[in-house]
């Protein structure tokens, strides 16, 4: 552990804000890299079921996998490279480590990762909101822009409300302050906000690059590291 090893609110808040700002301004690759540096030791961060979705250099650099707070050596014959996704600023690699013991998602290091990831995803969602506003301001309908249509204004306001609530819930939270169910809920809330934005972008939000991809990658990160509750609740 680095800066979050002996966390105090000020350090943690500064870290989270930096992650969020990186995600919003520079995208998912630098934000994930910074999250790994802040939360995870010199290892590949893996989710509860042994998957990882990380920038290519992280996938290739470390010889240990990190899941529930402890590292385990990686072995090529027990690892599958599932897919690569070219994103703005780099390439993300999805991996599966086989035969990993189930992760205890309640352990503090895991909770730091999932909370930090929520900040990253909030930053990505804010980036989508910025993109959406710019895009809708440039779309003309009748005598005005799409941005000034009442239904559109209402939808954007709803997203802003979600962002405010998510931010307030997480603001000042140390790893472990929010239980896993609350973190799962926050991730789901971010996904819903992203989907609201996508509905305003029409076909533009369905293109393989741009905001449509940001939303998909963000959902994929939540799927890998937080995962929807299985069998009725978080494991």
């Amino acid at each position: 552990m680095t800066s979050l090893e002996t966390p105090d609110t000020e350090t943690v808040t500064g870290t989270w804000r930096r992650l969020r700002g990186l995600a919003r301004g520079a995208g998912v690759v630098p934000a994930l890299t910074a999250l790994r540096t802040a939360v995870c030791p010199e290892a590949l961060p893996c989710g509860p079921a042994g998957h990882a979705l990380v920038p290519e250099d992280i996938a290739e650099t470390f010889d240990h996998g990190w899941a529930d707070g402890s590292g385990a050596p990686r072995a090529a014959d027990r690892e599958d490279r599932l897919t690569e996704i070219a994103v703005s600023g780099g390439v993300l690699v999805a991996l599966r480590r086989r035969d990993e013991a189930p992760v205890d998602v309640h352990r503090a290091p895991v909770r730091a990762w999932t909370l930090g990831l929520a900040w990253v995803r909030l930053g990505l969602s804010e980036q989508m909101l910025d993109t959406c506003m710019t895009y809708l301001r440039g779309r003309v309908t009748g005598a005005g822009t799409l941005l000034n249509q009442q239904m559109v204004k209402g939808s954007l306001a709803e997203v802003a409300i979600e962002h405010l609530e998510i931010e307030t819930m997480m603001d000042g939270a140390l790893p472990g302050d929010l239980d896993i169910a609350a973190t799962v809920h926050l991730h789901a809330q971010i996904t819903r906000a992203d989907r609201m934005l996508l509905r305003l972008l029409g076909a533009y939000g369905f293109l393989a690059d741009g905001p449509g991809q940001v939303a998909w990658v963000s959902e994929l990160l939540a799927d890998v590291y937080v995962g929807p509750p299985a069998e009725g609740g978080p494991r």
Partner: protein
Amino acid sequence: MIELDDRTRAIQRRAREWARELKPLALELDGDPDAIYRHLDVAIVSYLTRMPVPPRHNPDPVVIDGHRFYGTGTLERVVFAEEVAVGDAGMLLAAPGPVMSGVLVDSLGDERQKEWFYSRILQRPTWTFFALTEPARGSDAGAMETTLAPDGDGYVLNGRKRYIGNAARADIGVVFARTRPGPLGVTAVLAETSDPGFTAEPLETIGLRGLRITNVTLDRVRISAGNVLGQHLRPTQRGMWSAVQGLNRLRPGVAAFGLGIARSAYEYVRENRPGLPLRDRERLDDLGRRITGVRQLIWRAALAVDAARPSAGYEASAAKAKASRLAEDATMEALGFFGAGARLEHPLLDKLARDARAVEFMEGTGNIQKLNLFTGLLQGRLHRG
């Protein structure tokens, strides 16, 4: 509750059988949209290739259990589309056939144009396209910028279209363009993609990659006078009026894609997560009830279209708005039954979740549908019992 008659049940049964062939091909097409060229002999693709072609132009309809099918009825199309989309919505949209252009040619074409169009369709598998949406103004027809200008004994087409399905594969299609300012200044023409000045550039998408949406550029494309649609009709029945009528007929079909995607996700959970705990089973059962409800709404809209009820367009909007949200919700909820890493371990479910996002904007976004529905409500034209 609406119940299907024997004839429609026959096409439903057959489509369900055919759709089973599609599931194993779904991820292949998602990875490589050109896979459609390898699967033109799949029964359902072969059926779609010739649907809809009206009886007058189709001497060889598909006969199922003694019933003849031309693909022209809206109810039979939505029932069919749901089943195919359960197999793979991508394949449904990747298949050659008249699709949207066929609906326009049917309502706007004169006899010679119909003969020309349908003979091309029946000759060999032929992709078609329908070019309405533009880069700056979407489907706002009042602001359409593509122009159709007189040039010698014909016309010349200039402009850009965006998000046009299948245009890079197509031979022929319909393009909307402006001949003069005002709502009656929009005209539809038949265009051939081999004509000089026509280019279609595929766009990569998050899902429904089989559809292969494209950017279309029209740079002085020559259109013969005989390819202008609707000249034998009153000016009010050409152009945008026809587009709106056509979209009313097609919208329940898009809703049915969404329904099929939702049902596919629902059935995936049922097949792959047996023995769910009671709480999860109830959640899944509730999803099943939502699917049943939306299906009824779609059938209602389809019947309204087939009966040419004045409320048809509004009911179609209601069905489409509800089905697109159902598709998103059902696919996301289905992933929730499989725990962390579900999208990577169940690529078909991930594909369904990606595909579902397209239903939202096809034939108009949810907001457009709600605004249309509100117009019907305000003007007392929404049939409410």
